[in-house]
């Protein structure tokens, strides 16, 4: 079976007034692949992700999700993707079950399927006991899990996650990592941004590093190693050398 590119960004540019947030970013994420998006704070990760899921319109360039241009065929593109934001802002006064039903209805899924899938997801994320409590009574981790459950409601071909493991306990973080891997193994494209290099190194098949709005490197760990200076084997060293943080790391070493 030929490898299908499920996320495709071409010369993506986003400007806020005079400020260039994303500059000419192009990359692809194939089905069956977990793609890690790394970069320092304010590098443009969230902006790029928001353009992929249709929350932001690019200034120029294009994004295709599951073969659909997000600008031209937004409904088809959105129907194929699921999104988990960095902050799980969910309807505080809906219960977990109501939230999942609402999302299922937004995707126009069959009622019986929505009910079955809701029960499955609640069980999978250990939210069954709190399913009929309103979201505002959930802890941050529970809200994050509810957010991921909502993104998986329609079993998307493309899953985009912005810092998915922030604020999660090790058990929940492990659960999410396992689910993402399973999704990829079933042929979905998973694109996640993270600050935790260990997660990127262990989970991601390919990694893209963005700095000051520009994609400075894309590839597998081996390909990234070949880009770095000789002797740089860890993702942390490669990341710091590509994003200009190596000097700060040296200073920190001296201060120890």
């Amino acid at each position, binding site marked *: 079976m030929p490898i299908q590119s499920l996320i495709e960004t071409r010369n993506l540019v986003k400007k806020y007034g005079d400020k260039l947030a994303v500059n000419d970013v192009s990359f692809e994420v194939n089905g069956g692949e977990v793609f890690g998006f790394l970069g320092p704070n304010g590098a443009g990760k969230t902006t790029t992700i928001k353009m992929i899921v249709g*929350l932001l319109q690019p200034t120029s360039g294009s994004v295709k999700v599951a073969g659909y241009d997000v600008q031209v065929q937004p409904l088809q593109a959105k129907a194929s993707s699921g999104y988990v934001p960095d902050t799980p802002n969910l*309807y505080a006064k809906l219960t977990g079950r109501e939230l999942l039903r609402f999302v299922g209805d*937004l995707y126009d899924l069959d009622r019986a399927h929505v009910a079955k899938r809701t029960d499955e997801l609640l069980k999978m994320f250990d939210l*069954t006991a709190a399913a009929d409590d309103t979201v505002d*009574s959930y802890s941050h981790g529970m809200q994050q899990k509810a957010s991921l459950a909502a993104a998986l409601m329609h079993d998307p071909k493309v899953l985009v996650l912005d810092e998915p493991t922030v604020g999660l306990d090790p058990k929940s973080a492990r659960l999410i990592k396992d689910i993402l891997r399973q999704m990829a193994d079933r042929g979905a494209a998973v694109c996640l941004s993270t600050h935790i290099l260990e997660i990127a190194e262990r989970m991601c098949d390919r990694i893209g590093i963005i700095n000051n709005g520009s994609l400075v490197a894309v590839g597998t760990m081996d390909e990234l190693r070949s880009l770095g200076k000789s002797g740089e084997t860890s993702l942390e060293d490669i990341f710091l050398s590509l994003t200009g943080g190596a000097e700060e790391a040296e200073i920190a070493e001296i201060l120890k």
Partner: protein
Amino acid sequence: MTVSAPLPTPRFLPVVWKLIRLRLLLNWNTFKHAKVGRKIGTIVITLLILAFAGFIFFLSWLLLGFLHSPTIHQYTGFDAAPFLQAVPVLVFAGLFLGILFSSFGVLLQALYLSGDMDFLLTSPVPIRAVFVTKLLQAVLPNFGLIALFGLPVLFGLGISGHYNFLYYPLILLTMVALTLAAAGLSALLVMLVARVVPPRRVAEVLGFLTATISILCGQSGNLYNSMSHNVHVSGTQVNSLFSLLIRLNTPWNPLDWAGRGLVDLGEGRWLSGLLLVVLTLGLSTIAFSFALATAERWYYTGWAGMQVVARRKRPARAERVQPAQTVVLPESAAAVRMRRLVPTPVQAIVRKDFLVLRRDIRNLSQLVTPLIFGVLYTFMFLRPGGGMFPDQPDMPRTLVNVSHFITTYGNIGMSLFVGWMLLSRLSSMAFSAEGKNYWVLKSSPVRTGHLLTAKFLVAYLPTLALGVIFMVAVSIMQKATPVVFLYGLLASAMCLAGMNGLLLAFGVAGANFNWTDPRRMNAGALGCLGQFLTSLFLAFSFSLFVGPLVLVALFQWPLVYGYLVGGIFGIVICGLAAFLPPWLVRKRVERLNEN
């Protein structure tokens, strides 16, 4: 192992000063970085407030000086002295009670719900300093407001009565002492309540009650005025009021001691004056110190408890009953037809919005306003002689006909007015109400048309229901004919649809997703413009339906022509207003929340 020297405990007053300075800096920065128009507005408002205070001062000076004049007593026999002595008593008692009650909500917000509490309570600063700073921040606006009215009056009284110099600085000192005592007691009440009920819930309920009571109080004046057309204030009533004020000034009431003491001091009765003022200052200090000492123990535990309570509202469902699996009943034929008519995403958004509106009590405080207005205005409209044009015996026959028509169809106008108020909240804030959750809708495959339709229905359905209930009630009371009722219903439904379309479009144009308190979601000027324009549309659409009826009554043509022309014009124009504005902003909907 090196043992570090113990850190010195930070001193109380310097920390309070640091925290207050931080607040001042924040306010200054807000002003400095504001737009020029806002800066000018702030300066103008400040100058106007100062001018107003000056005006009150001169007015009090002149008026109280006039009352001090012996000529008044000579010619009218009215002895103003006891009344004048009661003025400071009234001001100080008002200040104490005003701060005590008005501070509750502000202190609840400042002590428990402000965003900087985590930062402050984890910083090495005494909890007492945090408490005092929060208290001052919360109370200062109310204190300023009361002082704005009270100080000029008290200074005016002093100057007009030639009170001695000690009177003036002691006014300020007593005011501050009473304010701190009242605020301290209010804070203790807040802490007591916060230990029992989650502060967020208390704030929600308080907001609802305050809004309802304010509207009821505001409208009770209108109702009273409308029931008694001519309100005359007689000399007897004025005398009764003065007597009441004088009777309130009693030596056994601690609230009166401050005012009585200051008057005694001002008029040279040193012993009683000093005794009462010292007693007031002493009691205020004791009350404030008690509040401080108790706050130190209660505040932290209450605040820490709040962090848990928020997540412990109900025991998990699993502990109550065995979690139920979702049971899917077979879809009824009506449900299938409904799904064909109204797409599932539209139904989902409507259902979600109704659930959220119903469950968030902060929304209810805004939605209750139209209901109160509706009930009050219906009563005013339907009471005997309450029509728009009460019959006059010498009125020409044609005008009598027109007047009866307008009175008969006035219920449409009232229904529209009540509907307009409800729509102003539901429709113009339909998108803003999504707040930070808007990403859920925006990242979902929902058509713009479906989204607009859903938001239209969320505002329209309850408004229409309220309008119908209103029309039915009024029609029964007016014994309206079925034709009048049905025509009124049609007119009401169409006009509300038109207003809804306009308000929805303005709501899209001025959408604000960055709010935490629902009462602040309508922050833009576009919302006000939308409400103004739709109030004009209200009058216009009402005249479209009722105007032809008035014309046929004037020219004594068959009534059916009036219904036909009014109906056709009304339906077309209102239909266009319902459809066109949302259609015009559809592209904007696709780009909402992208800045």
